[in-house]
């Protein structure tokens, strides 16, 4: 297919002016990919797919969404009404809105798997440190975009989530108060907040698209890691990206869409995890919902925040837990990449994954004394994992790494 297109006159005309043929060769048909990548390597292309879906559905939602907290009949607002109009009156509005809401959660599912794969197989280690760091930037922007977007329907969870998180910044000494005001644009979350969050919610995905370009470029300079975590030297160890990995990714996309569409069409609220029950109640600044927790993908960090009595410490720990991801490549000093050949690291990293799930569970549940202790232990392990990494090579006996694949 592709080779037929590349033989046409039109393609030749474009090629003379853009060098498209050379780009396709170097990035696709002759781009060397390790031949032993497993299905964990599918999540990168899935993340790209969801990003495109989010931008596309978002653009169409904006055609009907109105960012205004002006009150309308019955305790609702213009923003809430416009979302309900999309759900009820706009042709296929329900589909596009559910795709967007479910897509937000699926984006995090896919990206967390992608990050987990990178950690397990040591993809963050030299020479891929910068690739990892760009990835962490992407994660932070995603979390920002998700947070801004969650305010837009102006439901109870939108309002109180924004209130709590903007208030976090108040804990920062000296500047906190001003950062909070800059975010909120008033004395409490209100119409100015909604308007600026809407603006930023549109900006951040554009930033994402640009930075994802950088992420892919960085990848294509240093090339993919592989499950063995070894450097590849022989040409027979690699295969061209196209058609082998384009087809494998296409299969992955179809398989992913099965899950995505099942949720969109049959269970879009996902039992209150993807669209929370309280967000069907219009925002009320005089009444906090009884159960309030962030959306599931932010709950691990929320638990870290709650694990400290001092608000400042909590905020610092939460910020630190994200910031420490930036230095992961420099904390991990082992010469071996893949957990397959690092018995201790393998146990530690699997425990880390479980730990993050535990953190997420604690953050989503109403706090009890037991859960608080569990959350604190999980928080301790989260940091312990990172701080133990530099010491690990001193006592970890790595298994012999294969010569090739």
């Amino acid at each position, binding site marked *: 297919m592709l080779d037929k297109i590349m033989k046409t006159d039109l393609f030749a005309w474009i090629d003379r002016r853009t060098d498209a043929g050379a780009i396709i060769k170097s990035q696709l048909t002759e781009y060397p990919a390790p031949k032993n990548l497993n299905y964990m390597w599918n999540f990168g292309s899935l993340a790209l797919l969801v990003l495109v879906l989010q931008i596309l559905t978002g653009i169409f939602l904006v055609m*009907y969404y109105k960012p205004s907290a002006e009150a309308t009949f019955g305790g609702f607002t213009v923003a809430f009404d416009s979302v309900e109009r999309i759900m009820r*009156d706009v*042709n296929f509005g329900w589909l596009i809105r559910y795709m967007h809401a479910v897509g937000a959660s699926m984006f995090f599912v896919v990206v967390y798997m992608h990050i987990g794969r990178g950690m397990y197989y040591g993809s963050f280690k030299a020479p891929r440190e910068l690739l990892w760091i760009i990835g962490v930037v992407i994660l932070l922007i995603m979390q920002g975009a998700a947070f801004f977007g969650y305010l837009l329907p102006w439901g109870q969870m939108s309002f109180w989530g924004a209130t709590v998180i903007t208030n976090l910044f108040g804990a920062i000494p000296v500047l906190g108060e001003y950062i909070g005001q800059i975010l909120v644009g008033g004395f409490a979350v209100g119409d100015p907040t909604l308007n600026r969050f809407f603006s930023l919610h549109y900006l951040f995905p554009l930033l994402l698209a640009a930075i994802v370009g950088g992420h892919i470029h960085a990848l294509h300079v240093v090339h993919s890691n592989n499950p063995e975590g070894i450097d590849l030297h022989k040409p027979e160890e690699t295969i061209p990206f196209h058609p082998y990995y384009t087809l494998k990714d*296409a299969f992955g996309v179809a398989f992913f869409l099965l899950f995505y569409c099942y949720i969109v069409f049959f269970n879009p609220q996902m039992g209150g995890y993807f669209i929370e029950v309280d967000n069907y109640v219009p925002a009320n600044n005089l009444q906090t919902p009884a159960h309030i927790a962030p959306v599931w993908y932010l709950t691990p960090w929320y638990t870290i925040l709650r694990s400290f009595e001092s608000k400042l410490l909590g905020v610092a720990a939460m910020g630190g837990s994200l910031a420490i991801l930036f230095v992961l490549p420099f904390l991990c000093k082992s010469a071996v990449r893949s957990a397959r050949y690092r018995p201790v690291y393998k146990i530690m990293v699997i425990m880390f994954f479980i730990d993050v799930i535990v953190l997420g569970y604690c953050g989503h549940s109403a706090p009890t004394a037991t859960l608080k202790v569990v959350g604190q232990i999980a928080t301790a392990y989260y940091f312990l994992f990172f701080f133990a990494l530099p010491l690990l090579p001193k006592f970890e006996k790595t298994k012999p790494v294969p010569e090739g694949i």
Partner: protein
Amino acid sequence: MTDQANQSRRNFLYVAAGGLGAVAAGATVVPFIGSMLPAADTLAASKTEFDVSTVEAGQLVTIQWQGKPVFVVHRTPELLKQVDGHDDKLKDANSEAIAEVQQEWMDTPEKRKYRAIKPEYLIVVASCTHLGCIPLFKPSEGRKEWGDSVPDDWAGGWHCPCHGSYYDISARVLNGSPAPHNLHVMPYQYKSDTTVVIG
């Protein structure tokens, strides 16, 4: 299995995958483009009620219907007389050219001439059929009031300021105008003697 059989199976799968992919892409386009069509509430809000008795004799009132301007003119007997006598200068004297310029009730030559259910109240879409500007109402005959913005044998009607289209007092377009058609007549009916429901 032979290489050839393998190859043909592979080709079949490529074609099947490509075909299904194209179907998927096509099916995805439907809801997105569909969402840009008027929403259900917009479509339902497409009727306007208006009391024509509020328009004084000889006056024109512009009202809104589906977000578009609509002319309601109260034509005096003098104005009604201006309809006659210039059929040869009209592009479409009987309002037959396209569906939008006629309605079912236009079943007599009389009604086709006056283009109104009640001749004294002309109700037409106020968008010039050229490029959608709102024509200026210049009802009286001759150039007295209008200067040379109208032809010297002006029978009264509308003049579009954008590109100089002319319509007579039944909103029929004059020869030589860039506008191709008479002003459109939208569906409407009288709910009572003076209340008209447009849409």
